[in-house]
């Protein structure tokens, strides 16, 4: 990717970054998460102001603040990150924005690197904001520009929903001149718009529904919320209503069918879809994930058969769309299994999981590379739910289990995840300590390893690897009130972690053990960042 050519081969994430740059987005913020991570990395590489937030809620709040100040802001996350950011999302829909607020959310159908396959289009409906659903990199570029236009015209946050095969597929992108912000950032006071006390919020909700109605009317114009891809061979008079990557698969699987792409799944451009359906003998919906378009069609009185349940799971492909269109409902043969991922040879997490396994601990785990501690030969993780749950769920286990079993419970969390959602768990631990105490093991490898070695507030470097204030994890947990805090390098001293666990398990109080050793993949880079440029 570069800043000088007009036609390039980009993945969807890079295309979003390029459009944001071309449109003068003032601030990009987010939390890393596959497959969304590359958006901000690319935006930074292009010279944009990009920063990692401690978590997605903070990122969205920083972004909405910028948009209150008439700036254009881009906030990025993966689908499960939107759960964390849901609180501000639902109310910034009410307040609206002055500049542009684009929430780019990457779904992971098939769960290549996620704990669930929730469909973010549902959030757009629930939070009452428009969502755009691109099918390739050119559309990722174009829809980013369109999202900014809609956000500013109707003063509403707009979701840009992408999926793995849009984020991580490359296709050709042609840039164009994009309109720049009309005004420099500034503040205009209007508490009635931005202070959501009940009196203001009641009016704001009515205003929001009026905006959505106007946007729906706009979206129903041909070429706005829907895009027609006409059949390329003699038409069979079948119509396909499709969204996202499903559009690409459907066009290939059914060259004789017209495909109507629903570019804006919400607010649903019902009249446009109804007109398309009326012009075809029969219609089928092709979409990855939840039946969002199907349900919207049914509400709009468009007769479409439900997709068989098998297509609700995993990614679509041309092969699967052919089966779907042929009406095949039989379970599909599973693809041959590949080699599963594992902790790298020499990974410092390995030694930790050997110890936890050998001590028969009940391990309340978390989200990161170390989730691979569930794989053989360790099989040393008992639960993994969401970011930060290791600590709080571990406390719940300790409260509920009889003492002999409760004492076996250990919470294991990584450094980036700890900053993201572990702090409040530590507050809970000192406020409501279980009778048997608790042990939290923080595996601090100095990076957000799983998503590709991103920085976070406890590495002491910014997104662009420049020096920043460093949050010291052990100081923070001491300050919260944890009485027993140990820091060990379990690779340099092979007995250190075992000795620390011995002490903690014998004591029965509240313990945090920080096992600090840089990720094997990150260590050389970390040294390089620490060396001042010659």
């Amino acid at each position, binding site marked *: 990717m570069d800043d000088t050519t007009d036609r390039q081969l980009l993945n969807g994430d890079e295309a979003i970054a390029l459009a944001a740059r071309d449109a003068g987005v003032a601030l990009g913020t987010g939390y890393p998460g596959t497959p969304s991570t590359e958006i901000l990395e690319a935006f930074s590489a292009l010279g944009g102001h990009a920063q990692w937030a401690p978590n997605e809620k903070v990122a969205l709040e920083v972004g909405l603040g910028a948009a209150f100040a008439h700036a254009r802001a881009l906030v990025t996350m993966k689908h499960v990150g939107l759960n964390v950011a849901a609180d501000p999302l639902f109310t910034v829909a009410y307040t609206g924005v002055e500049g542009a607020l684009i929430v780019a959310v990457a779904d992971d159908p098939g769960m290549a690197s996620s704990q669930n396959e929730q469909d973010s289009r549902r959030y757009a409906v629930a939070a009452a904001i428009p969502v755009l659903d691109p099918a390739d990199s050119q559309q990722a570029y174009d829809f980013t520009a369109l999202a900014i236009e809609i956000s500013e015209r109707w003063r509403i946050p707009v979701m840009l929903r992408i999926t793995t095969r849009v984020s991580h597929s490359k296709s050709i992108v042609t840039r164009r001149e994009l309109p720049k912000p009309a005004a420099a950032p500034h503040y205009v006071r209007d508490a009635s718009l931005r202070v959501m006390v009940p009196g203001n919020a009641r009016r704001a909700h009515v205003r929001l529904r009026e905006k959505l109605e106007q946007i729906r009317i706009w979206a129903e114009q041909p070429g706005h919320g829907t895009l027609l891809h006409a059949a390329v061979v003699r038409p069979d008079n079948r119509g396909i209503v499709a969204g996202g990557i499903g559009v690409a698969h459907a066009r290939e699987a059914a060259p004789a069918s017209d495909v109507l792409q629903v570019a804006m799944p919400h607010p649903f451009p019902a009249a446009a879809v109804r007109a398309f359906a009326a012009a075809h003998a029969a219609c089928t919906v092709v979409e990855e994930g939840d039946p969002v378009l199907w349900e919207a069609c049914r509400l709009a009185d468009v007769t479409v058969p439900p997709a068989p349940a098998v297509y609700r799971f995993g990614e679509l492909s041309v092969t699967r769309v052919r089966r779907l269109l042929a009406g095949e409902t039989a379970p599909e043969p599973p693809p041959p299994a590949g*080699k599963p991922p594992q902790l*790298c040879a020499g990974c410092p997490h390995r030694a930790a999981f050997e110890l936890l396994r050998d001590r028969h601990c009940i391990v309340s785990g978390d989200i990161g590379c170390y989730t691979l501690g569930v794989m053989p030969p360790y099989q040393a993780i008992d639960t993994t739910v969401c970011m930060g749950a290791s600590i709080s769920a571990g406390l719940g286990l300790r409260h509920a289990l009889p003492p002999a079993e409760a004492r076996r419970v250990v919470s294991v969390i990584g450094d980036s995840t700890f900053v993201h959602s572990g702090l409040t768990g530590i507050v809970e631990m000192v406020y409501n300590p279980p009778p048997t105490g608790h042990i939290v093991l923080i595996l601090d490898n100095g990076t957000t390893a799983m*998503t590709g070695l991103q920085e976070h507030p406890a590495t002491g470097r910014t997104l662009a690897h420049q020096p920043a204030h460093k949050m010291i994890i052990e100081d923070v947990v001491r300050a919260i009130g944890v009485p027993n805090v140990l820091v060990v390098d379990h690779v340099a001293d092979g007995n250190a972690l075992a000795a620390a666990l011995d002490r903690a398990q014998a004591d029965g109080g509240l313990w945090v053990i920080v096992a600090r050793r840089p990720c094997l993949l990150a260590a050389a880079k970390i040294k390089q960042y620490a060396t001042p440029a010659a």
Partner: protein
Amino acid sequence: MKTVNIVIAGLGGQGIVKASDILADAAFRAGHDVKKAEVHGMSQRGGSVNTDIRYGSQVLSPMVPDGEADVLVTMDVTQIENNRYRLKPDGKLLSSECLKDFEHGPARAATVAMLGVLSACLDLPEDAWHAAIRGALPEKHHAMNLAAFAAGRHAGIAAQSSGRP
């Protein structure tokens, strides 16, 4: 022009994604429509990595449909059988086992050497390949990788003319 479909399969750390970037860029430089799909994330940790590269006058889906790959390139013997269903019936399997038959330089250039072998089966101009390799790798690694590519291409052309896969 009919779409050309290639699948490259290997393990995390073998440079599979980089190789697919080079192939996609070579096809782009040759003036084709190109799409490329891959799965990142977990794949970095030594697990299976697959990438699909497609080029032609108009490419729709970024993923090669099952049983439609013209060429399957495998960088590890463990990744042949689980990916064979991607190949079309008369498709060509290029296994990295063929690298044992010729000198291609250091092991870390093996994947680029396999691109050389692959290049003998494709109709992309050699200068597009060279430009793509230069564009994807730091300058200090150009000579080594261009040499590995040339060795692979030479071996691939020789194998084609002798009728071996």
